[in-house]
């Protein structure tokens, strides 16, 4: 099915992006399997440097494993029902001739995947939280990861408890004119101010005549 595109669907997507917040506490309800699959699908469709797909999504739902994972993950403030561990598969990277030590796309692809999944989770009325504050060595032990699989980032997933905190950088929080926090966007050169949105023709028409 061809996805609808245009101003109407764009506003739906943009509003989903704008209203998403990090969820730090989750209630005890499990994540429906269909919703979990759709979140994973969103990760699957994220951009991947050169289409090489060197990452793996490890889904953890076992309560005992989650408890041990939390013990070695100071950035996990509560126990969610699901953790998706985004891992780099060094074996796959070698097959694809990726230079893990030098290629920044290997990390960028973690970010694109998790962002897609967070937006999808929000659209599915789930809460999510990315976490990188964990001991890589300890997590590898807890999850029984082989040395060729490196945990990069956790995505905590579940039903949020209470309202989520507003973001630090809110910019324009709703529809209408787009605005940004000062200094976030540079135009044309470092520190460049936003251009005058008036079309050039109209600006020319309003300009006083110059001396010959």
């Amino acid at each position, binding site marked *: 099915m061809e996805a609808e595109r245009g101003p109407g669907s764009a506003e739906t997507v943009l509003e989903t992006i704008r209203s998403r917040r990090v969820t*730090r506490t989750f209630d005890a309800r499990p994540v429906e399997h269909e919703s979990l699959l759709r979140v994973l699908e969103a990760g699957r469709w994220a951009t991947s440097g050169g289409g090489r797909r060197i990452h793996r999504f490890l889904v953890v739902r076992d309560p005992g494993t989650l408890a041990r994972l939390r*013990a*070695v993950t*100071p950035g996990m403030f509560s126990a969610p029902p699901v953790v998706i561990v985004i891992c780099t598969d060094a074996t796959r990277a070698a097959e694809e001739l990726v230079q893990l030590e030098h290629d920044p796309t290997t990390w960028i692809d973690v970010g694109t995947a998790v962002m897609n999944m967070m937006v999808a989770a929000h659209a599915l009325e789930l809460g999510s939280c990315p976490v990188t*504050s964990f*001991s890589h060595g300890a997590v590898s032990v807890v999850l029984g990861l082989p040395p060729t699989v490196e945990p990069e980032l956790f995505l905590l997933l579940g039903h949020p408890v209470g309202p989520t905190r507003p973001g630090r950088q809110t910019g324009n929080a709703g529809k209408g004119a787009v605005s940004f926090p000062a200094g976030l966007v540079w135009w044309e050169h470092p520190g460049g101010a936003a251009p005058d949105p008036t079309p050039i023709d109209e600006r020319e028409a309003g300009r006083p005549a110059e001396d010959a």
Partner: protein
Amino acid sequence: MTAHDADMASPHGGTADGPADPLVVSESEALILLAHLVTSAELCLTEPYDYGIFRLIDAASRLAAAMLPRSSGESRAFLEPFLLEVDEKKMWDARDRERYGSFLRETSRRTAEHLVARAGGRSSASLEPGPLGGGHGG
């Protein structure tokens, strides 16, 4: 020296001829907190400096939560509001040193008040000096 002072001085929480404090944290809970502290220390190697402050107060919150169900009524009366307040304020932005510092100083003061109350109301000024003469530990 009160029985409570003796308990605090003993690594096992009791003496042969004095009453021991009840154990309020299980071995599993202690191991989980141990793992949290060790991994938090590792993360301090790479994370922003203010995260370390958060990790410690978060560990205190986790310890308080583990202690709460088996604590005495006296300690529960201290721990319940402690947990409520710390769990809210620990999420404040620690880069706001004035606000975060005020929260931590107040929490420290209240914790000390509970310690003193449990020891029978003796303030630190009346405690005997330790082996180092009561100076700073570092």
